[in-house]
Structure formats: C-alpha cells, structure tokens
C-alpha cells in the first residue's frame, strides 16, 4: 500500500509538471502573435467619435491591468500564472467584457456531453461487437458487421458528417441540422427541453459513433483472436466452463486492458475532435468557441480553451495510470 501511495504521488507530480509546461507553451505561442489586445480594444472603443488623449491613456492603463500586459515580460508571466491558478482567464477580447471563464462554462457542457456520450457509445459498442466477432468467428451477422465497420472507418469524418446531414437534414428532413436545442426554448429541466436537446444531438452523435466504432471494433477483434488461443481460454473451454462466462471473464476481460487505455486517451482528446463536429452541426461547444477565438485573435479565449483541454487530457492519462493496477493485477504500481 505504501508503494501505491508513492506511485500516486509521483504520478500527481508528473501531472502537475505536464500541465505547467503545456500551459506555458500555449502562453508563449499566443503572446508571440503581433496582436495587442489593449490597442485592439482601444481602437474598437474609439472608432466612433473622438476621445480625449487623457481618456485614452486612462483606458490603456486600466486595460493593461485587465489583460495583464503591463510591465516586463517576467512580470506579465507572473501575473498570468497568478490569474490562471484561480481560474481567471481575463475578459474575452471578441466578446468584451464577458470573462473567458463564463464563455467556457457556457460551452463546456455541450462539448463534454456530446463527446462523452459519443465516445462511450462507440467504445462500448465497438468492443462488444469486436469481442463477439473475435470469439464467434463463424457468425455471418458479425462478419457482416466487421465489413461495414471496416468500410466506414477509413472514410474521412467530415464526409460522413455531411452525408448524414444531407440525408437526414435535407433529403428526408426528420432531424434538426443545427444548434443544440430548438430556438426560443427556455433552457431548464423540462421534458420539452430535454427532448429537443436529444433530437439535436442525434446527428452529431451518430456521425461520431459511426466513424469511431470501426477502430474499437477492429482493435478488439484482433485482441480477442489472440486471447482465444491462450492456454487459459483453451483450458476453460476444455473444462466445459459456460461459453458466456468464458467470453466475459476470460476472453473480453483479458483483451480489454489496452482498450481502456485507448478510451482514456480518447476521452482526454475529445476537444480536438469536437472542432469539425461542432462546425458542421453548428453546435455551441468548445470547438466552435475555439475556432471563433482564433479567427478573432482573441488570445485570452484561446488560452482559456487550450488550458481546459490540457487539463482534461492530462487528467485522463492520470486517471488511467491510477486505475490500471485495479484492471490488471499484474501491473505493479511502480
């Protein structure tokens, strides 16, 4: 147990280090852009009518305060970190004066909800079908499923998304093609709102699952086809252990470990995949926010979204490392 505590401590330290480096890199890159948010805001604010030079100077001082761009480079960096640790990313430039954290808080649930459901669905379905296809290799239906999964898998995601959009949005218009819920609806815990959210999420989820399932399916099938020739599986079959038990506790259980690692990596990276999905289906999530921020040169918003993404990926990896010894008892906590 002491060994595990030490391991945990080491992993936590690693986590902090990765997050620290990641955020610093983001900071460096965004600050290397020639856009000065203070001058931009001043230009925007003084575009109409004339403002006295004193007022502009005052405005500049308070804006520099707000954006933390005053003082030397090191002072700026310190100020940046002082604000980051309390979760304050400053005001958004493109949606001035709304704070970045408010924008992220508004967008995050949409992305997280959509991607979580889609990733878990494709992981669960892919592994289940792949496991069955690897174990019951003669089954026609599962063979067919394999062909479909392998056929869809290499098609670029945006093509699948657009094809779905065209089929269910225009040719047979049964599903909404844009937004997260029907316009004019009051967000809240009503049945009508929930139904609308689900209806709007069907197409993006379906596109993500359709493309995502193939990789899990093929991975699991080949993992399983290795496990079924292992001595312990052959022996259990020889002993007349029930097939269901063999499939679950012997075959799937042993093949699953690498897939769980894969799942965690994918869960951490859901923000990257969300960009195209949210663009195509007009979904108001982090991906749309990030693209808008980059177009507008809104670097505090870019830093904010990227930081959330870095935290999510690192945390997912940490979680896998912490939970892995539970999954495979042979993995010693080192």
């Amino acid at each position, binding site marked *: 147990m002491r060994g595990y505590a030490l391991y945990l401590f080491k992993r936590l330290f690693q986590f902090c280090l990765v997050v620290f480096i990641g955020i610093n890199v983001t900071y460096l890159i965004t600050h290397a852009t020639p856009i000065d948010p203070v001058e931009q805001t001043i230009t925007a604010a003084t575009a109409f009518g004339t403002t006295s030079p004193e007022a502009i100077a005052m405005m500049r001082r308070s804006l520099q305060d707000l954006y933390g761009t005053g003082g030397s480079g090191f002072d700026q960096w310190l100020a940046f970190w002082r604000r980051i640790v309390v979760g304050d990313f400053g005001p958004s430039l493109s949606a001035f004066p709304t704070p970045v954290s408010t924008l992220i808080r508004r967008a995050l649930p949409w992305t997280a909800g959509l991607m979580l459901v889609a990733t878990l669905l494709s992981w669960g379905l892919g592994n289940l079908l792949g496991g069955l296809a690897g174990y019951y290799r003669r089954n026609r239906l599962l063979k067919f499923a394999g062909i479909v999964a392998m056929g869809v898998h290499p098609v670029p995601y945006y093509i699948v998304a657009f094809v779905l959009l065209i089929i269910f949005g225009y040719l047979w218009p049964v599903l909404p093609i844009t937004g997260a819920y029907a316009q004019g609806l009051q967000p809240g815990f009503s049945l009508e709102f929930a139904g609308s959210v689900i209806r709007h999420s069907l197409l993006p989820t379906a596109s993500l699952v359709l493309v995502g399932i193939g990789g899990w399916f093929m991975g699991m099938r080949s993992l399983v086809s290795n496990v079924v020739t292992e001595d*312990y599986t052959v022996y*259990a079959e*020889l*002993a*007349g252990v029930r097939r269901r038990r063999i499939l679950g*506790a*012997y075959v799937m*259980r042993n093949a699953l470990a690498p897939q769980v690692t894969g799942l965690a990596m994918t869960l951490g990276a859901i923000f990257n995949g969300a960009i195209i999905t949210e663009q195509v289906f007009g979904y108001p999530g982090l991906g749309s926010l990030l693209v808008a921020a980059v177009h507008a040169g809104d670097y505090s918003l870019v830093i904010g979204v990227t930081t959330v993404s870095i935290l999510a990926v690192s945390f997912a990896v940490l979680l896998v490392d912490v939970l892995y010894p539970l999954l*495979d008892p042979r993995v010693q906590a080192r």
Partner: protein
Amino acid sequence: MGPILAVEGLKAYYQMRYFGTLREVRAVDDITLEIQRDEIYGLAGESSSGKSTLIKTIARAIRPPLNVVDGAVRFDFAGQGPRDIYTLSAPELAATRWRHLSYIMQGSMNVLNPVRRIRHSFVDFAFRHMSLPMPAFLRRVEEHLGHLSLRPDVLESFPHELSGGMRQRVTIALATVCRPDFIIADEPTTALDVVVQKGVLEMIRRLQREMGSSVLFVTHDMAVHANLTDRLGIMYAGRLVEEAPTRALFRQPLHPYTAHLIRSLPRIGDDTPRHGLEGRPPNLASPPPGCRFHPRCPLAMEVCQQTTPVMQELAPGHRVACHAAAQGILP
C-alpha cells in the same frame, strides 16, 4: 466392469488444403488401446510422435485442422456403459467434463486466467458439478488444496503471485477436486525442476490411489514412467509400437525403439557411454512405407520396408508391433 477407456482403430489427421490439394499429417494412425479402472497408464515417445495429438483426440479437445478420420473413443464411466465421446451432445459433454473426465494440460503454467483469483477459477471449473452450497464448496476446495500442501489463502491470490510449483499444484487440484473417474495428464511435470517434480508425481499417485481414478499420463521422460505408471505404451511416428506392464517393459523391451529409449536412461554404477539414436523421426505427411521405424532400426529386414507390422501379444499383456520381435529376435 470392462475397461474405463477403449480406443479402437483411432485415426486423427491434421488435414490442410492448399489450393485444392489435401495435405494430411497422420499424427495418430490406427491406434487401439484399453485403459483399466484404477490404473496409471503411461504414454511415452519422443517429440512429434503423436502423444499430445492422441490425448487431445481422446479428450475430444480437437479443433481444425485436426480431424478424426476413423475409429472410436469409448469411455465407460461408472456403470453407464461404453459411449463414444464423439457421439455425446454438447450438454452431455459439458456435464461429463471435470465430473468424469478431467485434463491437466501441457504448459500448465499458463492455464490459469491471469486476471482472475484462483477461487473464481475453482468456481468456474468445478462448482456446477458439486451439489453443494457455495460455502461448503469452498470448504471442500480448501480441504482439497490441503491434500496438495497448499494453504487456503492461495484461493485469494492471482496466478502471477504463485511460484511455478504452486501453480502446478493448483492446476492439479483444479483437475482433481471433482474426483473425476479419468484424468488425462499431458506433461504435467516437464517445466518443473526435479525436486518439485518428485513432489508433484507423488501427489498424483496419492490422489489416484485415494480416488481410484484412472490416469493417462503422458511424458517423454522414461524415468518418470518407471516411477509412476502401471502400464506403458510407446508411440513412434503416430503409431503405438509397444505396450506392456511398466516393469515387464523395462525388464525386457521387445521393440528396438523401446530398447533405445530405455538404454538412454543413466544408471548408477554403469559407466558405458550412452548412444543416441541415429536419424530423426519421419515426416508424418509422408511416412516411410512398411514399418515407420525401419530407416533408423538396427534390426531392419527386407519385410520391414514393405509391410506394416501389426500389434501382436507376445507375452501376457505385452503387445508389440515389430517383425523382428515376432520372429523372436530381441533388441
């Protein structure tokens, strides 16, 4: 009651098709043998002599490309009458396995599920055969582990936490906890050092005496056979070439191949150098005509190259397939 196992004219070939042409490897070719109740029957022979294929076929543990081409494997478990294992339905087979017929597999080191505690393996393998409630079942398992000098806490371990010898004993416990009538043991001691090996062999012997089961014991190690088995069958190139009570076989082997196997054993006080047998076992995809041993046989005659010798009982319980032995020429 008759023998517990009667194998009749069993032929099992590995059949592979390459671009329409059938390639057959005759790993088990026309084998007939009987195993009595309450005996340990040994099966010996060098690698690729078909030992493992034979017992896989006997246990109906075959999967393509290995197919049974001809013959029957009749088991007669306590008063049920002989039945060919290949005519049993899937549920009948599942009910037979472990209750009547259990198997200690070759490479026993990897037969335990690495992510399952030993206790769960016992439940998976044996619980449905014992009409006991779970606590009583687990007590029975613990008691049985005690017979094999294993502490009850191995039940809570994972396989990787046990030593090789312990894992081997756990596997033997797993195969014997239901007190089966027939146990097939395929090289169960090959991977162990001699000290552990001796302990494991003694345990198998003791369990067999206590339960009155029959054991089919396979190993290429003639010393193990000399110490453990009651009767011994020698296989060469997919065929049974000699079969006799173990002591009689060691005292006077009739087949030249058996004589070589026995002579290769070191003996205390005997300093003469040991000679290996020239040549290699034949390719079973195209075995030599006549007696399959004739290219390596020091006693080979013209008839050996043309006709396949049949098993003949030359002494009570001592059968041999050899033209020379039939003419009274001893190796």
